[in-house]
Each structure stands twice: as structure tokens, then as C-alpha cells.
């Protein structure tokens, strides 16, 4: 994937959206608001969340907020319930975060094209699609072709297994989809700035349509190994309304540097053109060379 191009597109989108700045909840309160919008519904009466959604923010760089950089818009902190918008790390954990930041280029699990985890996958600079039918809901992310099958709460969480994308169980509270996520392991980060969690992370996500093309996303993160108290983030998600919009395939290729790199299917280098005569000639030469040795 052409990261620079993506960044500039998303930065432009984020800049246009400065007017719709994310409202901050009253400090110290869990971010829950009464909602008056009446969403469309599936035949079973549940709100219809289907569609391609994207977070038009550059907070994926640092969810505690960051200043404007060359070609990248600034972002406010996504954290809504601490006084300073910072993550309430335990002292040792803050040192670990700072250490992560210092070596983020190589230490960020996403630099290996791993699946992003929760909640990071939600505010990546690539869209995701919610797939839904009565009794079924899945979230399909562009990034690393990750997906989550969101089973109802009646199915118990898996025990003793960690997953990159966690183990998700859901229920509806009014018009809000509430997803309880555990088993996230400790191999994912929260952003590109080294903000992280342990294998004890417990996330409760809340998805609420606040308009036909806008969805509020909230997540409460609890992890007593790393944070001094639970904390929450909030952002808005926007529907991709372009006709025929689709999630594109995101598969990484390993480069000569033995690191993995995103390669967009629209990049001319994505396609491998074959010249079988040349391949056979090379094979024959290879065989001859080996015979000589």
C-alpha cells in the first residue's frame, strides 16, 4: 500500500472534518450518551450497521494526540475520561511505552503486517466493513484482511487462547451494539507511538449510529497489569458513500530486507507477469551450475 498517498488522503479527510470535532465526555464519566437518532433496522429489529466505515482521523499515529507533521494533520487525544487526555499507565508501564516509542519503527507489531488487534483496527487509516444479517455479525478490516466474527453473548468466551483480534461477544443495549472482547494477547499495540496493553486487556466496545452515515465508537480498556484504572476512547466513524465502494485486499509481501510491506492490488507491482521460456532457461542454468559443483 502506498502509505504516503494514503496518509495524504486521510490527512485531507481529517482536515475537512475538523468542524465535526469529537465531543468530549464529562471528565471522569464513562463515555455514554443518550441518542435520539432512530436507525434503520434488519428484519429481526436490530439496528442495521451494515456498510463500509472509516475513522477520518490521524489518531492511529498516537491516540494521546499529536501535533501536525509534514503532510499529516494533527489529532486530538481519543482518550475522553482522564484529565489530561493521557493513558493512565502504571509507572513501569509508562517506561515501557516510552521504550516502545523509541524503537517503534521495528518494534511495532504492525510493521510485520500482523493483524492490528482491538481497538487499533477501528481507527487505522483504512476502512472496514460491517457484515450483518439476523443472528450474524462480522467486521471485516482492510488491514491484513483481518476479520472478527462477533458471536452473541450466549456463547461463552474461549478460555486460555489468545488471538490477535481477540474473542468477541456481543449484545444490544437499546440501539447500541456492545462487544465484549477478551483473549487479545500481548502482541498488539494501540497505535504507532508505542501505546500498548498486556494479555490482561479487556475491551468493551460500543457502536451507536448517530445519523444515517455516522457512527459513534467508544471503547473502555481495562488492564490492571498496565493501567492504573480503566479508561475510554471515543471517535466518530463515517460511512464510505461512494457508489460501488469495496474493501480491497491487503496482503503484504516480504521484501529483500526480510520485512513485510503492504502492496496495494492497484499497484502495478502487485501483478506477477510470467515469462515461462525465461523461467525454464533460468531453471536449466541453475541445474547445470549445481551439476558442476
Amino acid at each position: 500500500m502506498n502509505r504516503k498517498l494514503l496518509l495524504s488522503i486521510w490527512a485531507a479527510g481529517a482536515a475537512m472534518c475538523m468542524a465535526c470535532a469529537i465531543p468530549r465526555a464529562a471528565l471522569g464519566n464513562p463515555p455514554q450518551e443518550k441518542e435520539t437518532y432512530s436507525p434503520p433496522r434488519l428484519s429481526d429489529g436490530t439496528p442495521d450497521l451494515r456498510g463500509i466505515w472509516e475513522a477520518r482521523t490521524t489518531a492511529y499515529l498516537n491516540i494521546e494526540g499529536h501535533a501536525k507533521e509534514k503532510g499529516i494533520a494533527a489529532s486530538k487525544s481519543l482518550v475522553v475520561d482522564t484529565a489530561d487526555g493521557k493513558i493512565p499507565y502504571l509507572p513501569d508501564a509508562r517506561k515501557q511505552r516510552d521504550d516502545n516509542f523509541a524503537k517503534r519503527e521495528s518494534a511495532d507489531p504492525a510493521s510485520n503486517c500482523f493483524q492490528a488487534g482491538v481497538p487499533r483496527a477501528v481507527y487505522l487509516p483504512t476502512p472496514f466493513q460491517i457484515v450483518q444479517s439476523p443472528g450474524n455479525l462480522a467486521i471485516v478490516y482492510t488491514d491484513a484482511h483481518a476479520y472478527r466474527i462477533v458471536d452473541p453473548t450466549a456463547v461463552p468466551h474461549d478460555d486460555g487462547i489468545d488471538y490477535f483480534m481477540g474473542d468477541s461477544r456481543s449484545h444490544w443495549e437499546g440501539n447500541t451494539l456492545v462487544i465484549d472482547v477478551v483473549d487479545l494477547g500481548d502482541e498488539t499495540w494501540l497505535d504507532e507511538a508505542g501505546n500498548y496493553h498486556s494479555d490482561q486487556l479487556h475491551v468493551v466496545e460500543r457502536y451507536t449510529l448517530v445519523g444515517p452515515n455516522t457512527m459513534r465508537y467508544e471503547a473502555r480498556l481495562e488492564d490492571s497489569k498496565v493501567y492504573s484504572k480503566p479508561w475510554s476512547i471515543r471517535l466518530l466513524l463515517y460511512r464510505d458513500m461512494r457508489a460501488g465502494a469495496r474493501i480491497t485486499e491487503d496482503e503484504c509481501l516480504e521484501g529483500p530486507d526480510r520485512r513485510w510491506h503492504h502492496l496495494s492490488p492497484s499497484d502495478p507491482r502487485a501483478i506477477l507477469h510470467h515469462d515461462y521460456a525465461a523461467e525454464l532457461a533460468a531453471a536449466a542454468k541453475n541445474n547445470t551450475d549445481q551439476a558442476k559443483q
Partner: protein
Amino acid sequence: MIGGQRGFVRARNAIFAAGALIFIAIPPAGAQVAQQTTQTAADKPEQAAIPRLADGHPNLQGTWHNEVGAAALRKAGPFGDYHSPGVPLPYPYLPITQKIKDYRFAHDLYGDPEAHCHLPGVPREIEQPSGIFPFKIIQDEKYVVILFEYTHDVRIIPEDASPHPSHYAAWDGDSRGHWDGDTLVVDVANFNGRTWLDMDANFVDENEHVVERYTMTSPDSIALAATVEDATVFSRPWTMHLMLKRNPAKEHLVEYDCHEGERDVDHYLQSEGNPSGKHE
């Protein structure tokens, strides 16, 4: 390093066969093998028995697996040919691509993109060895979505017969579906020329074009016919016939991930008594 290469395949076959046997142990499957290969479009679906959505189309939702067949597994054993019945081997290569296939089989089995954790492509994702992993279908009036457990592969298939995009080349290609009566027909193009069809070096290239036909033949079975054409690889189109069987409702998919990349190969080699893990 031929020994190492064979060992690599053997290990994968053994792992795969062990998984397959668990599946076979659940539904007694022997009786279904014969009918699987003779499944044709002439076999009328049992109209009343098929679940349907409100839009009238067959409801393909649920968790499924490719019914490999007990006979195929007996024939295979842990180390042999693991293909489903209904896979028309050998494929009709052109003379030059036959040589390519033979060379890769003898010298470059590590070239298998699955050994590098890549997406399997179509129709491999449903056939072997990924086919032994279940997949879940979610369907509405606009999309049929297939969520594969194997390497968290996903296909979102619109049902509107929309055209393929230009300037797009992907491991799984681009899928566009439509309903032909009760059959979901999926046209798949825009492949990137990187996928193989199996771990025996059967392959396709960037000109691959697949037409899949999913026909529900009972509430718990879907006949899948996948016709593959690739004029730069094969002398004629060929069709793979698979039978998909429903998994018990309480089974859910778990996350399958594969992220060691090239280093997987080193580990396979180490397990074959080559401590350095180096390969040619």
C-alpha cells in the same frame, strides 16, 4: 535439499490428514463419496427442503467445510495424494507450463505461496489443504460473504453481477456474483499471478479466470463446481467438483494466523535434521 523438501510436504500432509480425520470422524462420510463425484447440474435440488432468505434466494449461511471424503483420505494416507474426489487431475497444461510445473515440483516446492503464509487464492481456499478448515457464510440481499478460518481469508461477493475493476490484481482476485435460479454464480478474475493450486506445484497465473457455481442440494450440503480457465497455462478449461457440508451449529471459527513468513521454511528444515535451517 530434496530430502528436506519432501519432508516439508510430508509434515504438512501429516498435519493436514490428522485434522481431516477428526472431521471425518464426526459425520460418517463414506457413503457420500460416490455421489459427490457424480453430482451434476441435472440433480434437482430438493426445493422445499432448502432454507431461503426473504428475497427468495437459497440461504447459504452457516459454517461449512469441504467434504474431502473418506475414500480420498484412505487413498492418501498421511503421505499421499490428498485431493478431494472431483478434482480433475492431472490438469491439462500446455507443453511449456507442464515443464514449469515439473521443475517446481522437483526443485521449488518452497515456492508454494502458502508456505510463505500467503492467501491461497481461488479455488484452492476451499480445496486442499485449506479446505479442511471450516468457513462461515453470512448472506444478505446484496452480499454473500465467505469468512475462511484458514489464514483469515475473506471474500465479500456482491450479488449484483457488477463488472470487475481495472488496475486491480489480488491473491483472491475480484469476485462478482449473481443468481442463476437457485445457483449462486461467482465470476472471479483480476488475479495477481502469484498463487498455486495445491502444494504439488500445480499453478495458475495472472490470466486465471474462475466461474464458481454454488448449488444447495440439501439443507446441509452445497455442490460447488469451479471452472478454471487460464489460456497461458492450460490447453482447455477444467472443472473441479466439490461437496460442501454443514458443520454443527455450535461450532464456531477460531482465528488462524500465520506470520513467520520465510522463517517457517527454516523451521521445517530444522525439523528434518538440518539444524542450520538453511536451504538452497
